[in-house]
């Protein structure tokens, strides 16, 4: 029975990847980006922090593929090494908000009552702020650290997961298998964790994968403004901010390459998000 289901899923994956070459490209790019995050520091040809005044602001060449910045640091190495930090922030934030949000949402959806109403009001209020502004203020309030950028990005993602999990659980809490589990002697917590959460996992994972690109954009936006990551740490948002000064005088490569890395990553995450949605939930296919 299990292997049959596995086989079916495999077929869907083959269908989705084979039927749409874009999906295949997305998955390959995704793997490459993850690889860069894992091996970045090993692969980087030069020390991302080593300054060299003799080679300041060199345009891209065979020696410096992406050129050098105002301190003579190799931009290619910096872009490569930054992948890990940027992905860490994005995955951390989305993971945190998905975990917390689905738990909170499932609980209030299951029990309802006072906490349901109270939490829903709080979520409404959070959603009343432009989300990026809320993230800015959260980092400012909690303190200017990388961990707080993760928390801030998680906070602005949280409402989506709470609402989604709540709605999905409310639909299912009266269903046959929940009744059966209760008759079989399962307590509320066991029903919630063993029966309901696994059943609502797939829409939550879809939401998470779709959110990932957005999380990267938000985190990079925050560090572009100077919140969170501090120089000389290599990170795409802050590198774009450092390069912004040189755009108007023509040294485009300082800002362009980290910006391009950011764009490709978000683009890939968005595509994989869509592909994953196709695989996990064929009904939502567009």
């Amino acid at each position, binding site marked *: 029975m299990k292997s049959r289901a596995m086989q079916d899923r495999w077929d869907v994956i083959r269908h989705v990847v084979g039927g749409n070459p874009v999906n295949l490209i997305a998955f390959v790019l995704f793997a490459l980006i993850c690889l860069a995050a894992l091996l970045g520091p090993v692969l980087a040809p030069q020390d991302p922090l080593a300054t060299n005044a003799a080679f300041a602001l060199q345009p891209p060449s065979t020696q410096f593929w992406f050129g050098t910045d105002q301190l003579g640091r190799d931009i290619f190495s910096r872009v490569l090494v930054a992948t890990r930090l940027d992905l860490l922030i994005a995955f951390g934030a989305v993971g945190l908000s998905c975990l917390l949000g689905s738990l909170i949402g499932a609980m209030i959806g299951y029990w309802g009552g006072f906490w349901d109403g109270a939490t829903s*009001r*709080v979520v*409404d*209020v*959070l959603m*009343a*702020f*432009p*989300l*990026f*502004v*809320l993230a*800015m*203020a*959260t980092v*400012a*309030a*909690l*303190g*200017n650290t990388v961990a707080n950028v993760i928390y801030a990005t998680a906070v602005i993602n949280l409402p989506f997961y709470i609402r989604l999990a709540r709605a999905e659980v409310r639909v299912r809490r009266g269903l046959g298998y929940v009744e059966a589990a209760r008759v079989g002697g399962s307590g509320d917590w066991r029903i919630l964790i063993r029966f309901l959460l696994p059943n609502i996992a797939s829409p939550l994972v879809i939401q998470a994968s779709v959110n990932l*690109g957005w999380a990267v*954009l938000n985190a*990079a*936006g925050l560090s*572009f*403004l*100077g*919140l969170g990551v501090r120089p000389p740490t290599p990170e795409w*948002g802050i590198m*774009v*901010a450092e*390069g*912004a000064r040189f*755009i*108007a*005088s*023509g040294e*485009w490569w300082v*800002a*362009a390459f980290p*910006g*391009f890395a*950011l*764009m490709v990553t*978000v*683009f890939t995450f*968005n*595509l994989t998000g869509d592909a994953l949605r196709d695989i996990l939930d064929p009904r939502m296919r*567009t």
Partner: protein
Amino acid sequence: MTRIALRLLSAIPTLFGVVIVTFLLTRVLPGDPAVFFASNPSMSTDDIAALREQLGLDKSLIEQFWIYLVALFQGDLGNSLTTGQTVMTEIINRLPASAELTVFAFLLAIGVSLPLGLAAALRPGSLIDHLSRLISTLGVSMPTFVTGLLLIYVFYFLLGVAPEPIGRMDPFLFDPPKVTGMLTVDALIAGDMEVFRAAFTQMILPAVTMALFALAPLTRMTRAAMLGTLGSEFVRTARASGLSRRKIIFTYAFRNALLPVVTTMGMTFSYMLGANVLVERVFSWPGIGAFAMDSIINLDYAPLQGFMLVMAAIFILVNLTTDIVVTIIDPRASK
């Protein structure tokens, strides 16, 4: 009518929640502002205590909140510790700059995305359909600050057609007499075309940057909604009845497709409010986003508080307007 009134009332609890959140957030800001401003060594602990008392920081949180609330009702958002002005004056001075930019960008985005989405839906699989898909995929992946810098590089540095990306006005021209605070509008009122041209060209690049970002969801939604209504039965009936193509597309299909599009517009506008901060930073635009960033850096929390309140208030207002427009477009939505 009563529906609209009820909807207006329902915004009040949210607004109150927003006030609580902004209050709490800014109270946990790092660094006691009194200590921050008393950082010169000549100040004794007594002086710091006096300053705390003056700023009301020695009272309990509830008391502080009450004082804050009362002041808020009198339109007093506190003082900016760095500029010495009241936050209200600062925001009133800077809001027109942000509003002018955001509204212009929003109109630009609507002006491009609606025809594009419409054309894409009318000819699925055509070149224009692929173009619209490309734009809507790229648009959501492009960080606004990167797009802005790219545009500066191409149009200011390479082609030299755009003015220097700093501020709202050519430094050699005088601002038009202030009426609305929006330079282009004021220049038109004064009838000064040279100033209008200067202010307008200054605004094009930042506005295009923001519009590109808003284009994606709007185009995507217009296309999807149009495809939906074009395939529906009432359009088939209209077609079978021999109505003109124009009437079918605009009166039947487009009007019915407008509902989700308007909802998306509201959402997009809120994202633009957030993106505003980034765009203002890239183009040194002296709006409220730049103001908020300055106050964050200076640990000046009253302006940040004011900024968040204004942003949330605008956002709630936009949502209200969206809802009301939706009820007007489609009376079924209010049931």
